[in-house]
């Protein structure tokens, strides 16, 4: 009888508390801690040395993104304003990565207001709002980390991020637009934080780009959040100059494909290149041949033209005579690019 009375009190009390507290109170997992990327065992080339030029494979890009990448000249990164450019939120979790995560709670109710993530790559700090606030106006500024809101789905934290600046899906190759939306799923098993992101971009992707990374929680409490980037002038150039290749004049298109005995088409990316069935088609394609601009200038036979399009059609256009001097590669501010 006493239990029944207690239950009569407890049920409405619990129900009332839940209604008052809302969903954030049901958080199952505490992500608080310091994490390090699993650089050596996962996606080493992308996280460490970085991709090669025209290494678009495995990305669900459209032909516009491909053309953007083929016109891209790496010396554009040597422009002062580009040197301290940050990897946007849909990219930054894959890199030499460390993060500190903590919670912001109401001091009285202890309700979860936000989850904060400090990322040491480019010294970023993002806020994942857990209090149900709406996303900002379309006219609001866009940032590298965007505007994030999160909800718990069982033990999984699901985050939606909008208002992200233009960046890239593959460093120095494939752009991301400022109209992208990224949905992240955070899962924790023991000390391993599995980070899954699904990015939708109506400008440069034909399908959502899905990526995952595992990050290890570190028992070490040392966390260096600093990433000083100071741009430097790298020689004189005409005011307003923006390095780029004219359509069809990028001399490096076949380099990566030839180095890895791959057909050219494979390296030009597109959704087809993501799926296992594509291996059958790959076997029917000729391996790319590459002659460097220096070799061509010394009389070597020019590289055969790459296919006129990637897997989805359009206009890659390669193999034309290289421009004098070839293409400058690299660029770098102090503390800036070149390491990730």
């Amino acid at each position, binding site marked *: 009888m006493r239990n029944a009375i207690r239950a009569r009190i407890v049920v409405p009390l*619990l129900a009332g508390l839940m209604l008052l507290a809302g969903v954030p109170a049901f958080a199952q997992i505490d992500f608080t801690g310091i994490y390090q990327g699993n650089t050596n065992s996962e996606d080493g080339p992308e996280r460490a040395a970085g991709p090669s030029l025209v290494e678009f494979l495995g990305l669900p890009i459209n032909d516009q993104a491909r053309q953007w990448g083929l016109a891209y000249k790496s010396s554009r990164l040597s422009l002062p304003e580009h040197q301290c450019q940050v990897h946007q939120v849909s990219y930054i979790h894959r890199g030499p990565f460390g993060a500190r995560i903590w919670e912001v709670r109401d001091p009285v109710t202890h309700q979860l207001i936000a989850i904060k993530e400090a990322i040491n790559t480019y010294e970023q700090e993002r806020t994942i709002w857990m209090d149900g606030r709406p996303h900002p106006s*379309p006219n*609001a*500024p866009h940032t590298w980390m965007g505007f994030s809101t999160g909800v718990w*789905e069982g033990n999984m934290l699901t985050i939606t991020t909008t208002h992200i600046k233009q960046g890239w899906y593959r460093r120095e190759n494939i752009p991301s637009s400022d109209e992208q939306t990224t949905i992240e799923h955070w899962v924790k098993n023991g000390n391993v934080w599995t980070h899954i992101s699904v990015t*939708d971009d109506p400008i440069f992707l034909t399908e959502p780009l899905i990526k995952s990374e595992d990050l290890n929680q570190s028992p070490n409490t040392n966390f260096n959040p600093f990433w000083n980037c100071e741009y430097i002038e790298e020689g004189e150039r005409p005011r307003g100059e923006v390095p780029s290749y004219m359509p069809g004049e990028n001399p490096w298109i076949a380099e990566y494909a030839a180095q890895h005995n791959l057909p050219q088409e494979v390296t030009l990316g597109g959704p087809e290149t993501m799926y296992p069935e594509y291996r059958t088609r790959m076997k029917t394609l000729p391996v790319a041949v590459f002659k460097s601009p220096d070799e061509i200038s010394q009389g070597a036979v020019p590289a055969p033209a790459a296919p006129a399009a990637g897997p989805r059609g359009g*206009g890659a256009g390669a193999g034309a005579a290289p421009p004098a001097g070839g293409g400058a590669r690299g660029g770098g501010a102090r503390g800036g690019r070149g390491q990730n």
Partner: protein
Amino acid sequence: MKRSLYRSSALVVAGLLMTAGLSHVSAQQPIRTARQMPFPKNPDWSKLELDVLKVQGQVYLIAGAGGNIAAQIGDESVLLVDTGYEQMAPKVIAAVRKLSNKPLRTIVSTTLMDSHTGANGLLVKEGRQIDNTGPGLGGRPNEADLIGSARLSAIMTSVGRAKISPDRWPPSTYPGKSKDLTSNDEAVIIMRIPNAVTDGDSLVWFRKSDVVATGEIMNTANFPFIDVEHGGTINGILDGLNTVLEITVPKHNQEGGTMVIPGYGRIGDEHDVLEYRDMLTIIRDRVQNAIKKGMTLQQVKALKPSVTYEYELRYNRDPAWTAEMFVEAIYRNLSVAK
């Protein structure tokens, strides 16, 4: 009895959990970064709403009246950069009055378009130089001062009063490269950008608030309009954007710091200007390269991929100013320059 009561309590709790959880998840689904879209054609003006956002310091953005309006709101007065379409004037006035009851003292026009200068006349009359209802200084009308470059005034005059009502013409003009003024204890620099969208364009730099209103040289929904008939050129637009890059300073790792209000579209910072400048430079260089090769305009237009190809999904959204029109304007500019 006890068991069933506990079971019912568990069901209630589980139900609440599911309801609350599902409602949040379903509310989460439609969230997407909004597309930057051009201003609608022939809109139902009564249904259009303004979007007012604080940029930083004393400067606000009033969006939705046509072109963007930058509003400097201070202890002494209100200064507006552009006024939007005439039909939106009552809503703009109401929005300004929500921000401040101080007199609207100064209006700066950055370019020729109706979307930027359409409400000049109405808003000038709404303003006042001194805070009384009598005549203004020196017996002049007690209304807002309307400032523009001398070239803008000349262009408006040449277009004629039949097309542009004289009350939209800026009576306070500056002939040189720039005009300085202090408004609300802040240095405001109006810089002329020759041969940009027109030959009468200006940008406005709020030095203490650290905000630049670019006028139409930057438009986050479209390729920039080039009004060739009134002296507009791609190189003038690029010169203006390079000037903006020179005066903007990011706060940290190419983000924040000086904020930028484009002529139309969302608030940005140096990096947004940078990407826009890069795109326009690349397109300009491609057209220039084609001209050097002796290609005709028709041949340039027929190029596949087009010279604007990778940017078209993002910026070719205005049927009144298409990528093809943009390329044609650049071709005409650069052919003359040759």
